């Protein structure tokens, strides 16, 4: 009975204030989309780090067959002895900087390549011989890349020392800036959402002043008087958060899974699973927003 009555009041309130409710839904939708986008960007960074960043920090590419521009490769493909000499240097001179070394042979490189590009790379069919062996180093301190590079560059059998992080650093920076941007916009929009919900509840309270007046006089409890307003705000906000979740899902589905992943497929991307992880968070934020706004408004407008 009570429940049904309260629900009836909620829906009549929503109907009466349709424009404001729509505004609340839209503003929470947009603000929470930014919140969710920020969360997904961070998840993306996490994925990239898991995938690459923490495993390989420096790749020492060894001289391949044939001629290259590097003078250290004048002697052709790197020999077993040269590789062993390099390992020795790493063991002695770089013992403090390098924590782990492993060798990736041409076969392994090719296997990894084939796994990534089962259909060949940009139309050319490569073979095992086109691959390049490398020493992969994991550093104790990621900041020591320059030292490692200085020691190993130019030695016989070394074509180039590549800092894998250098590839990702600008990307991470971009993603972090994007996250900050999303967070900033989210903050502004969330503020707008709180103000709008506050106004909506106030309008709703004013338009129902006669009802609440009667309710007070016949002895309805405070909770009973305020509940419809609370639920109205919460319902609109939750609707907005669901829309935001849906929007993010669509974005990930069509922009990342269907498009990005096909064009640049050597990166692990956020997936729909991540959206499902973020979405409950958005609903929680929406409810918190509504609760916050109601708290500020209701005691003022529906006091006993």
């Amino acid at each position, binding site marked *: 009975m009570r429940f049904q*009555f309260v629900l009836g009041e909620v829906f009549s309130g929503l109907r009466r204030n349709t424009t404001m409710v729509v505004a609340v839904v839209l503003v929470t939708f947009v603000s929470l989309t930014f919140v969710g986008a920020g969360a997904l960007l961070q998840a993306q960074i996490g994925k990239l780090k898991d995938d690459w960043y923490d495993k390989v920090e420096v790749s020492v590419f060894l001289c391949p067959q044939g001629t290259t521009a590097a003078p250290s490769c004048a002697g052709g493909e790197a020999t077993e002895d040269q590789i062993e000499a390099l390992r020795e240097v790493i063991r002695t001179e770089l013992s403090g900087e390098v924590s782990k070394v492993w060798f990736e042979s041409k076969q392994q490189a090719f296997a990894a390549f084939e796994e990534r590009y089962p259909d060949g790379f940009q139309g050319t069919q490569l073979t095992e011989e086109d691959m390049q062996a490398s020493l992969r180093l994991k550093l104790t301190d990621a900041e020591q890349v320059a030292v490692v590079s200085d020691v190993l560059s130019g030695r016989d059998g070394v074509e180039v020392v590549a800092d894998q992080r250098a590839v990702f650093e600008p990307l991470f920076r971009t993603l972090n800036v994007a996250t900050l941007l999303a967070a900033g916009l989210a903050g502004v929009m969330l503020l707008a959402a709180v103000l709008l919900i506050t106004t909506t509840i106030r309008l709703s309270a004013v338009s129902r002043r006669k009802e609440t007046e*009667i309710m007070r006089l016949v002895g309805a409890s405070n909770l009973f008087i305020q509940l419809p307003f609370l639920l109205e705000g919460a319902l609109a906000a939750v609707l907005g958060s669901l829309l935001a979740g849906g929007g993010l899902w669509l974005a990930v589905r069509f922009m990342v899974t269907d498009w990005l992943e096909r064009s640049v497929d050597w990166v692990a991307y956020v997936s729909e699973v991540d959206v499902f992880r973020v979405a409950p968070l958005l609903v929680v934020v929406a409810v918190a927003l509504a609760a916050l706004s109601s708290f500020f408004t209701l005691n003022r407008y529906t006091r006993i």
Partner: protein
Amino acid sequence: MIRFENVSKVYARGARPALDRVSVDVERGEFVFLVGASGSGKSTFLSLVLREQRPTRGRVYVAGRDVANLSGWRVPTLRRQLGVVFQDFRLLQNKTVHENVAFALQVIGKPRHVIRDTVPEVLEMVGLAGKGKRMPTELSGGEQQRAAIARAIVNRPQILLADEPTGNLDPTTSLGIMRLLDRINRTGTTVVMATHDDEIVNEMRRRVVELSDGVVVRDEARGGYGEREAILPDVGASPVLDAPGSGTRVPAQPVRGS
């Protein structure tokens, strides 16, 4: 049932008190008229009973409770024992008569079957049988006030407060409303009614408490309305009615010849 002990109410700092050391005791089942000029404090008296206002000084007891010191969350319990009607009826315009009366029960969480049984009973009692489906705008003023009374008594309150319930009604209709209030009073409900209607007060011969500038100036067991100021005071041969200072006029002086 209602007991005022030396109650004063000052709305704004420094202002004249709306009630000034008022002591009144209303017994269970009594019918009391509150009379007095506009601004004498009748509505203030009722709002103290309802605990819409708190007294500045003194104590107010309603049904044995010290209302002034009642904590906020107990106020609804108090109000469920009180019914109120006003001069302007205060019906919800978007609800039918039946819904208006049912509303008072719904919002205090009464179960549906209770509402279904009680509302038609009460509507019949106030003389609105068969009019439950009408909207307030489809009722006469007297009928609207009956609907408001139905809403006030549907939860069987011990006390019914009425603030000028006949103020918007013509004398015949007012009489009908008074009969209804009298009937409600006879079922044991204590009734306190603020009014300006001298005819009704004189006719009913009930207890009359008269306020003047917030002070009780008369408390009579079977009183009449009391004296009323003449609507047009005898101003004599005055060229201007109601002019400033018209009470103490200096007789016109013949103009000295020049």
